C-alpha cells in the first residue's frame, strides 16, 4: 500500500511540475516582451497546450495506476502459493481442497502450451498465406474487397461465437446441408480435446493474423518490389526475397500477439468442453499423446478456482497465483515478439 501511495504521489507531483513549468515559461516569455504585441495570445495558447499535456498525462497515469493496483493486489494474494511452493504449484494438478500440497496448474499449462503451439502451426501459415495472396496475387475486384471486409468483421466477432463454431465443427457430430458429414473431424480431434480447443482458437485468431500480416505486406516499399522485378525476378521470387524478409517483423509480432490472445481466452474453451476437474492424466508438457484427451487450460482453471472460493477461501489465493502464471506467460510471449521484431528490423535495415 505504501508503494502505491508513493507511486501516486510522485506521479501527481510530476504532472503538477510539468504544468507549472509550461506556465512559467509562457509567463516569463510574455513578461520579457519576447512575443511582442501578440504576447497575450501566445500566453493563452501555451496555457491551453499545458492543460492538454496535463490531461493526457493524467489519463496515462490513471490507467497505469488502475493496472498497477490490480497487478500488485493479484501478486500479493498469490504470493502465499508462489513464494512457498513455486515449483509444486507449477507441477501440481487440480485438487478439491486449496491446502492440498499437490494443488497446481500443470494440466492448465499443458493445455495452454499446446493451444499456443497448435495456433502457431495452423493460424500462422494459413493467415500469412492468405495475407500474401490477398495483397500480392488477388486481382482487385469487388469480390476481394468484400472478402477483406468480411475478414475485418470476423476479427470483431465475440469469442463465444467461435466457441459455438468449434463445438459444431470439432466436438459434436454434425452434418452441413444434410449431407456433408463432419464426423471425420470429430474422429480426428477426439471431441472435447486440446486439439479441438487449439483449432477453435486458431479460427478465432486467424482474422487477426491475416489483418496484421496484410498490413505488414502492404508496407513493403514498392521500389523494392520494382527493383526485384526489374532484375528479372518472378512473382514468387519477389515475394520470397523481398516481401517476406521485409514484412517478417510485422508478421511475427502480429502472430505472437494473436497467440497471446488465444492463450488468454476462456469462453470458447468452455464451449469446446474444457473441464475443470477430474482429469485423470497429468502428462508431461512435451507429451503430445494427450492431445486428443480431455483437457483444461489456465484461464479455465482461474475461472474454476475463483468460483470455488466461496466454498474454500484458499482458492482465491490459488486463483491469484494462477493469474500471475498466465500473465507471466503472456508477458513472455509479448517480450519474444518485441525481441524478434527488433532482431528482424535490425537485420532488415
Amino acid at each position, binding site marked *: 500500500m505504501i508503494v502505491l501511495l508513493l507511486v501516486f504521489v510522485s506521479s501527481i507531483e510530476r504532472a503538477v511540475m510539468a504544468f507549472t513549468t509550461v506556465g512559467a515559461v509562457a509567463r516569463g516569455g510574455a513578461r520579457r516582451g519576447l512575443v511582442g504585441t501578440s504576447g497575450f495570445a501566445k500566453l493563452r495558447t501555451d496555457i491551453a497546450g499545458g492543460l492538454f499535456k496535463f490531461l493526457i498525462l493524467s489519463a496515462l497515469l490513471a490507467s497505469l495506476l488502475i493496472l498497477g493496483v490490480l497487478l500488485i493486489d493479484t501478486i500479493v494474494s498469490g504470493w502465499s502459493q508462489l513464494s512457498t511452493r513455486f515449483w509444486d504449484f507449477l507441477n501440481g494438478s487440480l485438487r478439491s481442497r486449496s491446502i492440498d500440497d499437490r494443488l497446481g496448474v500443470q494440466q492448465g499449462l499443458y493445455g495452454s502450451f499446446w493451444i499456443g503451439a497448435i495456433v502457431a502451426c495452423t493460424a500462422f501459415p494459413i493467415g500469412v498465406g492468405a495475407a500474401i495472396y490477398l495483397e500480392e496475387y488477388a*486481382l*482487385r475486384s469487388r469480390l476481394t474487397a468484400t472478402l477483406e471486409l468480411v475478414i475485418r468483421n470476423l476479427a470483431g466477432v465475440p469469442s463465444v461465437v467461435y466457441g459455438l463454431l468449434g463445438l459444431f465443427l470439432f466436438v459434436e457430430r454434425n452434418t452441413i446441408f444434410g449431407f456433408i458429414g463432419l464426423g471425420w473431424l470429430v474422429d480426428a480431434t477426439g471431441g472435447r480435446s486440446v486439439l479441438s480447443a487449439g483449432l477453435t482458437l486458431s479460427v478465432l485468431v486467424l482474422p487477426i493474423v491475416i489483418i496484421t500480416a496484410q498490413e505488414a505486406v502492404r508496407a513493403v*516499399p514498392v*521500389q*523494392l*518490389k*520494382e*527493383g*526485384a*522485378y*526489374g*532484375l*528479372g*525476378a*518472378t512473382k514468387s*521470387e519477389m515475394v520470397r*526475397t*523481398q516481401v517476406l*524478409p*521485409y514484412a517478417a517483423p510485422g508478421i511475427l509480432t502480429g502472430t505472437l500477439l494473436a497467440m497471446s490472445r488465444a492463450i488468454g481466452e476462456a469462453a470458447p474453451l468452455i464451449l469446446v468442453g474444457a473441464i475443470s476437474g477430474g482429469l485423470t492424466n497429468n502428462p508431461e508438457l512435451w507429451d503430445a499423446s494427450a492431445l486428443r484427451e480431455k483437457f483444461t487450460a489456465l484461464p479455465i482453471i482461474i475461472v474454476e478456482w475463483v468460483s470455488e472460493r466461496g466454498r474454500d477461501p484458499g482458492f482465491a489465493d490459488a486463483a491469484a497465483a494462477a493469474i500471475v502464471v498466465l500473465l507471466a506467460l503472456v508477458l513472455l510471449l509479448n517480450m519474444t515478439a518485441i525481441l524478434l521484431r527488433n532482431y528482424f528490423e535490425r537485420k*532488415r*535495415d
Partner: protein
Amino acid sequence: MSSTATILDAAKPIPERLVMPATDHLVDSLDPEPHPPDDAEDLPTAAVVFDVDAVSVYYGEFRAVQDASLKVHEHEITAFIGPSGCGKTTLLRCFNRMNDLISSARVTGSLCYYGVDLYNPQVDAVEVRRRIGMVFQKPNPFPKSIKDNVAYGPKVAGLAKKGPAMDDIVENSLRKAALWDEVKDRLNDNALGLSGGQQQRLCIARAIATDPDVLLMDEPCSALDPIATTRIEELMHDLKTDYSIVIVTHNMQQAARVSDRTAFFSVEVNADSDSRTGILVEYDFTQHIFSNPSDERTENYVTGRFG
C-alpha cells in the same frame, strides 16, 4: 517458359552483329522501312533495338502518352527529355514491361525489340526484364549486403550460384559501375549504408550483373552531386560499347553531353476535354535537337524559353 524464351532468343543480337559493319543485312530484314532522311548522316546506321510504332499508354481512361514513334539504335545512348509529367517514365517503363505491374496501365501500338513484339502474349515479361535492365530514378538498393544486391539478378536468372563464379560477376559488375574500389573491403556490409551516389552506382552494377542487352535509366543522376554525376556519365559512355542505353533526364546539358539521339516530349493540353497528354515532339540526332531543331517547341525548351 521455354517457348517464350525461344521467342526472345530469336531477338537476341547474335554476336556477329556486334562486330559486323552496321550495313549488315539483318538490319534491313528487321527494318523494312528505309531510315528517315535525317538518318542520312555520314555516321553508320546501327541496328534497331526498339522500334516504337504509334505507342499510346493509358492509365485507366487517362492517356499519358499518345502515338509515340521512334527507333532506338544499338550501342547508342538515347535521351528522353521534356517537361515533368510528359510521359517519359511511362514510355520508358513500356520497354521492359514494367507497366504490367500497374493494373490500370494499358499499352497500344506496337513496340518491337529486335523485331519481336514485346507485347505479344507469348512473350514472358520476366524474360524481357532479364534482357532489358532498368535503373530507377531513386536509388533502390535492397536491404541486403552490397554483394547480395549485385548477386540478386544472376541468382534469380540462374546464371551462377554462390562461389567463385558469383564472386567474379560481382567484382566485374562493380568495376564496370566504378564502385569496386570504394566497396571492395566491405562487400558484406548493408547496402543502405552507402551514400546516395554510391547507392545509384550499386543499382547500375546490379542492373548490369544480369548481363542485359539494354539499360533503361530513369533520371539516374537527379539526386547526385556534380562529381557523382560526372562519374555516372563517364560510366554510361564506357557501357555504350556493350549495351544500348536509354536515359531519361531533366538535365539538358547532360542529354547534350552523353546522348547520340534525343527525343523531346511535351504535354499537349486538349482544350475540349481539358486532358493533358504526353506527345513526342521531335526525335533526332542530339546535335540537331540542340543546334537547329525543326520544331519551335523543341527550340523553346532547349533554349530555356519553355512556357
